[in-house]
């Protein structure tokens, strides 16, 4: 599903990745651990097409992201991948419903608003936030906010979910619930082509529950045992 070949990447003069390679062939839950500042988020953004490597190739579902133009990459971010952030990144002036519908605003698919609203109804029911749709983010708990962010990431039914410490700001009860939601999404058998959950985390317990566990260090990326 994902292939990274010889990736080199720097932020200003700071080298982040040197000859980074990775291959994820099948749909799975994949966790990524590593110390702060090592480049875990950068790794997700490279796969999400938000950053371009200096050299090397990022191939996702057969698409070489380096060769895509801005419109094509935007379309890819809108339909193929979904982002979940540690700080949720909800817009305070929009209601829960409006926040969830943001990806629909940038959708280039022919499906209209009706379809997006149907999908929204289904997601808020599944994520148990149907009573919160008209509320604003500042009146929600951390868990509710993250569930809203997950609903937003899943609105356009992506095949890959890129989660950057999705439970980093949550208490243990909310963490459990969010992880259950994400695991259930990945294991959903109705998905024909398979789903990939790539999750950055600091928590070794969370990382341990993944099908594949990766560690990012100064030496590069390596698989680690459970």
């Amino acid at each position, binding site marked *: 599903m994902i292939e990274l070949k010889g990736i080199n990447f720097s932020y200003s003069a700071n080298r982040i990745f040197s000859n980074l390679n990775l291959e994820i062939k099948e749909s799975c839950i994949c966790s990524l651990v590593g110390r702060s500042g090592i480049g875990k*988020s*950068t790794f997700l*953004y490279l796969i*999400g097409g*938000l*950053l371009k490597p200096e050299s090397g190739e990022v191939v996702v579902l057969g698409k070489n992201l380096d060769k895509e133009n*801005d*419109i094509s*990459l*935007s*379309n890819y*971010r*809108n*339909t193929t991948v979904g*982002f979940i*952030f*540690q*700080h949720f*990144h909800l*817009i305070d*002036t*929009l209601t829960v419903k409006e926040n969830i519908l*943001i*990806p*629909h*605003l*940038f*959708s280039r698919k022919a499906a209209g*608003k009706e379809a997006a609203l149907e999908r929204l109804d289904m997601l808020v029911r599944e994520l148990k936030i149907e009573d919160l749709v008209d509320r604003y983010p500042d009146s929600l708990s951390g868990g509710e906010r993250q569930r809203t962010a997950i609903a*937003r990431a899943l609105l*356009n039914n992506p095949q890959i979910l890129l989660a950057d410490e999705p439970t980093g700001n949550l208490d243990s009860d909310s963490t459990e619930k969010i992880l259950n939601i994400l695991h259930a999404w990945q294991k959903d058998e109705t998905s024909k082509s398979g789903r990939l959950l790539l999750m950055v985390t600091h928590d070794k317990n969370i990382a341990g529950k993944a099908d594949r566990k990766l560690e990012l260090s100064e030496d590069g990326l390596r698989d680690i045992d459970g």
Partner: protein
Amino acid sequence: MDNTSLLYLVKRDFKRERKRFIGALWSIFIATSLLFLLLSLGLGIRSYVIEKILSRLPSNQIIVRSKPLDLMGVSFSSSKSSGLNNNKVKEYESWKEIKKVYKQADAAFPVHVYGKLIKSYYGSDAIIVGYDSEYLASGQDWEDKFKYEPGKPVPVVASSTLLEIYNEAFASANNLPRLTEKDIIGRELFLDLGKNSLRRAEDYSPLNVKGVIIGFSNISTIFGASVPLEYVLKWNKMFGMKDNNYSALILEVTKPEYVDEVVSRIKDTGYRVESNLELSRRLTTLTRVMIGILLILGLLFLFLSLINLVNIFRLIVNERKREVALFRSLGASIKDIISLFVLESALLGLAGSIAGILSGLVFSLIAQKYLLAALPSFPFKPLYLFTFSPLAALLIIAGTIVLCVISPFSIFVKSASSDPAKHLG
């Protein structure tokens, strides 16, 4: 992003940023209002100049005079030595560029004119100018009366400008009634030829001649009486002039584009030449400069409002870095983000300029009404101060929209293409 989504986001931003956008709107509104006001004033001045002055000056006419300046008919020497005689007329008539030559002769002797006006007799030293009937009377109601008929009262044409000066300056200052052309036409007046309040002709006894005012003209001499040419030629002979020289020849060229060439040729032969075209050009240039100054002043206000707009967008864009990055991560393209900002600034320009023009229009109409009412009567007092041009209004609206988009455009591009990863943490 489709148009519905774009409008949804713009509506949301206008709601959220309403205080800042009202600030931007206010400055665009004031600037376009002042710009429209100043431009309308400039166009008003231009219309006034064209209507009051340039329209009275046929552009295909050239006046040729002898070199020494002839002041108020006091100089005797000018016509004597002018060389503007029938031979000269024939010469000019032979030029292919010249369609017609009209003759003008100024009285070479002192004149005093008097007549009954209202209930009293009024008199004044004046000049008498003789014109070719064809030149002065052609197309006028009184055309058939403006001719040489010995034994009858001399037909006199007065200046429309003189009547205006009387009404707006003299009558109001001396508490006299205003007069119309109708009040004056048909009135008798008397010409004392050969004497005025300053001097008396040496070679001939003064002669009193009866005249009648038959009409008014824009092109007749302002401070005097215009009569058929033959009278002045006859009187000049009586007062000692031996030859039949004219004071001026008025040349009508076949096409206005020949004016410069003809003027140059005549100047080379030592004559003084006045061309309406040259005067028109000078006045047109002056008017253009004035409009240009007013326009620059208006554009300066617009420039200041654009600086304000750019600063407001710089603040907004700076605060929305994280939001823009989020939009990019959720599928917005660089073009989508730029379109959003461009539409917002264009709508500000559109709303601000339309409101500005409407207020400029209302304000100038009010200002015109009160200023004209407050101004005392004076000759050539304008009837209006502002001229409103729909084209100018449309140009201001279109220009403001374009400038509102162009000025902060680099900020929009920078924001849309900045690294989203940097702002998402």
